[in-house]
């Protein structure tokens, strides 16, 4: 069964450094998402991406964050200058379009744990 894959599984970085988290969504999916979960807190929506552009973003997703789908398969989340409070588990998810027989189900990756020191 196809799965969403994420790399790296864990990254440790120094405050102020740039980080890129990578995701390979399921191949026939059209909607892509990033969520994050700070330890002990709820899973929070960051951004959704459809038709090669951001379709919605949360207030968390400020100018330090960007997303890209550079080659039709990868979907990346970049944090330009990491802060201590960016330490969290970051989940990528994808969804098939309804018209293509999809439902509301999001398929999640296993997550990338980011630790900012």
């Amino acid at each position, binding site marked *: 069964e196809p799965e969403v894959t994420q790399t790296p599984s864990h990254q440790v970085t120094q405050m102020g450094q740039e980080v890129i988290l990578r995701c390979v969504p399921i191949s026939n999916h059209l909607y892509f998402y990033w969520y994050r979960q700070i330890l002990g807190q*709820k899973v929070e*929506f960051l951004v*959704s991406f*459809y038709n090669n552009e951001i379709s*919605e973003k949360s207030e968390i997703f400020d100018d330090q964050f960007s997303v890209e789908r550079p080659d039709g398969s990868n979907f990346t989340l970049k944090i330009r200058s990491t802060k201590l409070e960016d330490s969290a588990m970051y*989940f990528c998810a994808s*969804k098939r379009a309804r018209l293509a027989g999809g439902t*509301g189900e999001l398929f999640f990756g296993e997550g990338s744990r980011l630790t900012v020191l």
Partner: protein
Amino acid sequence: AQRVTQPEKLLSVFKGAPVELKCNYSYSGSPELFWYVQYSRQRLQLLLRHISRESIKGFTADLNKGETSFHLKKPFAQEEDSAMYYCALSAGAGGTSYGKLTFGQGTILTVHP
């Protein structure tokens, strides 16, 4: 605005006992409700969705629009049900949120032998 509330952070039951994980939501339109489960060291995975009205692993959930609730129930809990359970809401087919899910805080269910 969308909001999902799971009032219990922790829930412990014994094997064979009934279990109910509570979920209440706030949304002005017609939402789609989901339960996601995360077993230890595994990814979030869909357990069930209200529109399919199915029973997965013995779990059921009924959408009560009057009470704005979507509680998850199982009549006889098993040890393998121990996991983190998340209730989530999507704006639905008519919404413009592109399928964004809003999650509750999650409930850690522990089923003791």
